[in-house]
């Protein structure tokens, strides 16, 4: 398969036997969540939906896959979500079939979905790639595959001689999984398991610097990859550097 990095997302277009558009962590309804925490801004859902639609138009996929955290409020559904989600999902449905692998923020979303649109929480193998939200232990059958996950909202900041030259850009992190740490058996054919952390689609995501994902304890997988040789890419696929070197440079 070949991936295409869609910078207008960030989103991924995975091309193999079919074209699959992947979007992680859209967090519809987050604004009312912010409001409860004391930050009051208007809903940006319409703009976020417009971005989804333009990613669809740009890539002409066969299907859209939401990689979890399509909505925001937990444990209760917010008023904003009740009001907005049905229409958002309808708009997408009219353009293209979609699936959701639920994340930790998706409790209760079933009521807005058709049965076939909801995939299992543990993840799913689609067209040769394993997809999962990323907040739980990896299931045994994911081993030996490329795993694409969301949940971690990775970002990268760039530094030059004087200081920080670019702050918190959405970033992809590609790494080898340490199977033992992740509680997986080795693949029977010795195929390695790789994981691609996707940045959040949601524009207000604070993000976790790629340099600290490994120490973050944000998920069972976050500490189970080879950080030294992991590779960091920007939203448009620009290769920045090996994670090991980024960490070393930040300390220098």
């Amino acid at each position, binding site marked *: 398969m070949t991936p295409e990095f869609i910078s207008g997302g960030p989103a991924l277009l995975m091309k193999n036997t079919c074209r699959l558009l992947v979007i992680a962590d859209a967090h519809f309804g987050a604004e009312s969540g912010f409001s409860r925490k004391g930050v009051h801004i208007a809903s940006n859902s319409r703009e976020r939906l417009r971005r989804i639609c333009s990613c669809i138009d740009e890539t002409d996929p066969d299907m859209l896959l939401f990689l979890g955290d399509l909505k925001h409020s937990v444990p209760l559904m917010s008023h904003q979500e009740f009001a907005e989600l049905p229409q958002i999902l309808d708009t997408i449905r009219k353009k293209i079939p979609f699936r959701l692998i639920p994340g930790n923020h998706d409790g209760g979303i079933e009521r807005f979905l058709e049965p076939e649109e909801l995939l299992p929480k543990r993840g799913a193998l689609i067209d040769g790639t394993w997809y999962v939200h990323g907040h739980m232990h990896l299931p045994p059958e994911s081993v030996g595959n490329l795993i694409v996950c969301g949940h971690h909202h990775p970002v990268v900041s760039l530094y*030059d001689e004087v200081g920080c030259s670019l702050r918190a850009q959405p970033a992809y992190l590609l790494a080898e999984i340490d199977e033992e740490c992740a509680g997986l058996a080795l693949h029977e054919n010795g195929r390695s398991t790789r994981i691609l952390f996707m940045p959040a689609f949601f524009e207000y995501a604070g993000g976790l*610097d790629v340099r600290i994902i490994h120490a973050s304890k944000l998920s069972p997988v976050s500490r189970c990859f080879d950080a030294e040789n992991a590779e960091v890419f920007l939203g448009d696929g620009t290769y920045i*550097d090996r994670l090991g070197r980024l960490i070393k440079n930040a*300390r220098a």
Partner: protein
Amino acid sequence: MPARNLLSPEIQATLLKRNFLELSLTQQKAIPPIMEGKHLLLIAPTGTGKTESAMLPVFDRLIHLPGSGFKALYITPLRALNRDILFRLQWWCHELGLSVGVRHGDTSQYERRKQALNPPDLLITTPETLQALFIGKRLREHLPQVRYVIIDEIHELAGSKRGAQLSIALERLAEYAGEFQRIGLSATVGNPEEVASFLTGKDRPHAIVNIPAAPHMDISVRFAGEDFDSQVRAVERCIDHDKSSLLFVNTRSTAEALGHRLYERGDVEVHHGSLSKEVRIDAEDRFKQGKIRSLICTSSMELGIDIGHIERVIQFGSPREVSRLLQRVGRAGHRLDTVSHGTILATGFDDLCESLVITRKAKQNESEDVSIIHGALDVLANQIAALLVEYGEITIGRVTAIIQRAYGFYDCGAVPEVCGQMAEHRLIRMEGNLLTRTGRCRTYLYGNLSMIPDEKKVQIFDLVSRRPVGTLDESFVIGWINTGATFIVKGQLWQVVDLDDGKIIVEPAHSATGELPSWEGEQIPVPFAVAQETGRLRRTHAFAAYGAGALSETYADDIISSMEDSGAPVASDNLVTLEHFDDGVVMNICGGHKANEALSRVLSILLTARYGSSVGIEVGAYRIVFRLPSGIRAGDLRDLLYSVDPAHIEGLLRLAMKRTALFKYKIVQIAKKFGAIDQQADYERISIHRLLETFEDTSIQTETYRELFTTIMDVKEAARLVQQIQSGETEVVIAPLSAIGREGLSSSRDIIPPPSADQAIIAAVKRRIEDDNILLFCMNCRKWKSLTKVSRVSEQPQCPKCGARLVAALKPWEDELIPTVKKKQKTNEEKATERRFMKNANIVLSSGRQAVVALAARGVGPENASRIIARMCDGDDFYREILKAERNYIKTHRFW
């Protein structure tokens, strides 16, 4: 007719009882216009009976005024002052059968309830508590009776947002009470007319009585030594000289440091705003009783709190402003007919020169203007919310009519826009012209009765020494502090280890540059005029003429002559020097804080745009430190000074300030005052940068710029500095680092990142490739190979063995293929490798180092490399081509 005879017999009798045999000059001049019912601004030194000047005629009217309700409001900026005024006025009120009360944050519930049921004739209060009077229904009923409003220490309020808020509150009061008489009491200011307009609003006539302070001042400047020990000794000598003294310092930390050293004496106490009320009152009382000889205090003591007789005011370090010096020294003596004695203890060369200049100006009564704030939109939002809580619903037209009566808003047409913004964050609702409040409106108002930014302080905790090392404002922290970040506090570099429970856990860091800016409180800026005259003094060496004593003069002369001996030019009012140091360039320029702040930012913005790298700045009144990447030299800065168009400074700043820490810090503060962000908001996992983008082109952003361009930066003066340079009036020279350039800095620190993300990315990728390993292999003799970093490769690599330039630049893993290329007999596959290596070497032969860079990139082989080079682009475009090739490779060839 003498003023006294204007007063009614009851008042005259009370005067006699109080032993007021003679009225002071201030009272003589102020009483007649007040008796005539005029709005009056009374400017007079502290301790000349200002309060009585205003209150005697007011009492005169109050005793004849029937009915109940608040009849006069006496507003002061400080609770401590309220207590003092109450103490002074109680006697009069008692004698005259008037009731008086005080109401502010410290007032007990019992007292508050009593006032609500049975309002005193005279209420002493603060601007913030005045706001609260409009909220309660019962209190509101007492407002229509108000006939007099006295604002004490009005100079302290007029230039601040507190004052802007108060001026609207007075207009809201007028909605209930109709027109009332306004009396403002002020210390010396440079612009009495404007301060009077602030008092009365645009259209009401006013009178001004101005009693100058300066003739009664005796101020001397003494050099106290450069190290803290000798400064402490100088302070002690000063304290010992007089029976009672106030020791003014500029910051709380200085107060603490001096207090720490002087406590042992047993006759010195510290007094500042962070201490509890009890501790402060205790210190005041003991001073009054003569149990302590000296009180170390900050600006809170400037105001007229009565603490008994003060023989001398000692000012530790330059007072920075003329008006501040006058006000502080005015605390000594406390009678118009006695002279106020003041001594400034200067703590360094800049400090000494500046103190001499400020003293000269003080003697000539050249006080600074109080700059009245015009159109503060956060204040407007605050008062719109207040009006809605007060009335439930109100039209935009009525709001506009009310606020435009206040001087600071007379031409303000921003009400609809501000209302739109408030509706956006659900503080109010807006239907056509009618505004109504939401549930959140009242909560917001209770949390925002004050316009003083109520900053949560975040503690910085050192993991290694297990000690707190300081605090940062929360508005600053949320935008800038993340794990792994480094920043400078108190001159030391720290790295953030963790953010925990509102604490920043740090450890000492060792890198040379701080990534993050830091903000050490809001300092008193040195005005442009003071900084320029200080520069002139450096040039004329007229230290003696400025009244420097022998010791001070010798010290200053020594500094100047040691500079001259080493051939170092001395920066002055007509000379700017640029001095190299390890991390960049120091620009010595006597522009004062605000002009230097603007200039430093404009120059950094231009540098980042031109060189695509970040620039760090530290700004003081007499110098700007630029932290620069190694490629930028003093000459580049000089070229910019000559080429920047002074007329474009503001425009450039407007465009580029958005990227800076200062802007983000301010916009968070202002969004809070607008009610868009709650005081106690939890920002965890929200991108504050993206969040702030939603304020783009809103009144929140407008207000942020307004504040930056008035309180932090002065574009006009910065443009003047640039004009002086470009007209040749001011010379610019490049010099080695001098004693003056090395002096400490104060004020702000910031990092200006490059304008486009693109530049930052290219720089990062360039750095990655330069740091990559490359294997050089001679395709001519095939005997030499060398593994090296791209950064060490010369312009045209050459084989040291055979001297040929046919050198292939290979990826390190291609090392294993070299033996096959050396073989005599080759398989087809091996021949292909050889052809590939040969092609590689040929590209290096024709394009040199550029080819090596391209060949080091991820997934770029000879084919791609020659395509990239064939595009014949250089600089950033060359790297853009490399990035494109890498992206393509990653998409199609790797991993998947």
